[in-house]
Structures are given as C-alpha cells and as structure tokens.
C-alpha cells in the first residue's frame, strides 16, 4: 500500500511541479538540452509511476485471499481491488484516446511527405548525401530549409536560400536541420503534441508542448554552432531573419553569440570574431 501511494504521489507531484519548475527562468535558454531532458524525464517518469502503481495494485488485488479473514479489516483490500479495476478502465480509456489522437498526427505526416515528394519531383535540381542524410535542393523563390523526420528522413533547401547564404552559412543551416533529425526532435514534438491533444486542459501538457517547440530549435542552433562555428551559424540566422522579417531569428543569433561569450579565452575570441562578421540588430 505504501509503494502504491508513493508511486501515485510521485506521478501527481511530477505532473504538477514540472510546469512550475521547468517553464521559469532564463536557464533553459542557456541550457536547452538539459531543460528538454528534464521535461522528458518528468513526463516519462510520471507515466511509468502511474503504470507501476496500476501494476502494483493489480498484483496486490490478485494476492488478496477473499476467503480468509483479514486482521486489519476489509477496507484496505477493497480499496486495492477497486483501484485496480478503476485503473484498468482508465488505462483502456487512455489507450483509446491516444489511438484517436495519433491518427490526425500521422495523417499530417503523410500529407507533408507527399507534398515534399511532389516538390522534389517537380523542382529539385540537386540531391546529395550529407553525413548520411539526403539533402534535396529545390527551385523556389522563398528562402527556406526544412527537415522531414521518419523512415524517409531528409532535408530540403530552396534555391533562394542557397543564393542568399555563403557556403559556410548554408552548411550551418543544413547542420541545424540535421540536428533535428539525428536528435529525434520530430519524435519529441509528436510526443508533446500527442500529450497535449490527450490532456488539453492540463497546464503541464500545454507547457511541455510549448517548451519543446522552443527548446528543439535552440538545441539545433547549438549543434550547428558546434559543427560550423558561431560566426556562420549566427550569420545564417541573422540573414534568414532579415529576409523573412523575423525577430526570433535575430534573437537566436544573439543567443549563440552570447553563449560563445560565456566561454573563457577561446569563447571571447569567437564572440569578437562573430561581432565583427555579423550585423546584429539586437536592441540592448
């Protein structure tokens, strides 16, 4: 009974405390990988604790001997049996809910894949493999890059983006998209989206989805910066931000330079190099 209550208590505390602890403060912008890891740990451990409490209660209920008189009375065993039955009913409901919510997410993925295939077939002018991932260049007037997760994972880069960026900047954009694919950010996005779709009124589910959206972008920025250097990565963000009139891209560039500045000696050289090479529109 103590184990059962502890598991339940942990699940409730983790579910309620994670949005309060993990969606506050500037630390998550500095350490996005840690923040996303904590979100996933809180989410998955709550889920495991709930499943564990259900399994435990079923085990206890099956071990209860109804023919034997219980010295501590009838209340404890009755609660365990009722909890086990209610838990099983809730589990069935949750499985049905997840199945119904996962269908639109899958359908959206199929639609996006189909549109990408058509785009590639009508407009691609170059296809290369970059570190094991296919990169397709397509003729298009919009400066864009995108990655598609799944069995058929690939990156699509438009001709306009290739024309606007230097080779180093373009490589950092490809590394950004590659990070989304190699770090399974699509899976994280699907998980957080599905969680929110199943529990739309729950603050933790909403915050998890919102945080995941921001954190995966920051993690991919950091990966690109590590692979290609802060100068090219920040400049690529600034350039695309200017082309698309996006403040968020400029802020993400400023964050990369800010992070580089936190490193002693080597980082200071990198930030000076970055500052001389970029035209940041950061309003301090």
């Amino acid at each position, binding site marked *: 009974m103590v184990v059962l209550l502890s598991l339940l208590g942990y699940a409730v505390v983790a579910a309620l405390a994670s949005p309060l602890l993990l969606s506050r403060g500037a630390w998550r912008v500095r350490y996005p990988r840690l923040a996303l890891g904590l979100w996933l740990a809180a989410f998955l451990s709550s889920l495991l604790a709930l499943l564990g409490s259900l399994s435990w209660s079923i085990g206890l209920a099956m071990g209860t001997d109804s023919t034997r008189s219980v010295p501590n009375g009838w209340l404890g065993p009755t609660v365990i049996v009722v909890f086990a039955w209610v838990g099983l009913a809730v589990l069935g409901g949750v499985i049905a809910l997840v199945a119904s919510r996962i269908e639109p997410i899958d359908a959206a993925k199929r639609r996006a894949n189909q549109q990408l295939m058509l785009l590639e077939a009508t407009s691609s002018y170059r296809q290369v493999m970059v570190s094991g991932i296919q990169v397709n260049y397509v003729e298009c007037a919009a400066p864009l890059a995108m990655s598609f997760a799944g069995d058929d994972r690939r990156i699509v880069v438009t001709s306009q983006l290739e024309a606007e960026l230097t080779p180093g900047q373009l490589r950092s954009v490809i590394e950004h998209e590659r990070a989304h694919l190699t770090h399974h950010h699509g899976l994280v996005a699907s998980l957080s989206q599905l969680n929110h779709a199943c529990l739309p009124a729950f603050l933790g589910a909403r915050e998890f989805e919102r945080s995941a959206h921001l954190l995966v972008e920051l993690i*991919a920025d950091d990966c690109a910066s590590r692979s290609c250097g802060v100068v090219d990565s920040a400049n690529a963000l600034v350039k695309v931000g200017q082309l698309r009139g996006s403040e968020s891209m400029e802020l993400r560039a400023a964050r990369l330079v800010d992070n580089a500045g936190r490193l002693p000696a080597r980082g200071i050289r990198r930030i000076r190099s970055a500052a001389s090479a970029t035209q940041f529109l950061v309003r301090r």
Partner: protein
Amino acid sequence: MLVVQRAKGELRTAVLRILWAADAPLTAKQIRSSFDESDAVPAITTLLTVLDRLGASGLVQRGPSPSGEAVFAASAPESQFTADAMISALLNADDSSAALMRFAGELDEGHLEILRTALNVRPAAKSK
C-alpha cells in the same frame, strides 16, 4: 567533417518524372527502359518497390493492362503542382509541425519574451 555521397532519393524523383512525361500508363519494364543508359539503371525489383511506395503515398496509380501486366501512371499531371503552391501548403499546415521542422519556423510571442528576458533585450519597435 561533412561527407558527400550520392543521393538515394533520386530514383523516386526520376520515376515520377518519367510517368509525368509519358502519354499513357507504363509497365515497370517500360519505365526501366526510359532511364538514360548513361545513368545507373535500377533493377526491376527496386523499381517495383519505389512504385509501391509512391502508390502508398497516393502519387502513383496502379492498374492492369490488356496484357495482364500491371501498369503505372501518375495520379495527377505535373502542371497541377507548382513549387510555390506546395511550399505554401507545407508552411501553412498547422498540423505538420511534428513531421516537418522548419529552419525559419516562427516562435510565438511567449517564446520571444523568454529569449528577450534571457538576453536582456528590449522588444523590437513595431513599424507603423
């Protein structure tokens, strides 16, 4: 270090282009014979796998020919698709965020505020 190799999705694109260029549905053998001999010509089994996948995606239709051999045709003509329209459809699909990550994906005002606070940056003045 980046390693550049030959792309593997070329075959799918090549098959769709052959089907769009054809006046009538083609058999797998006819599709295979349409490949330029200077390029690597795919094996018939590889071609059938690609056609199956394109069929599952709804881009290719399969039907029987009078000779009983399966024939394949593109589900819609190439002229129906323009790059800008497809990009626009991809960008405007709210529900595709789990499948498609965009480099210039917009963050909402709440996210911007988090970044501004962390970087000690004032909000950008809105142009009138």
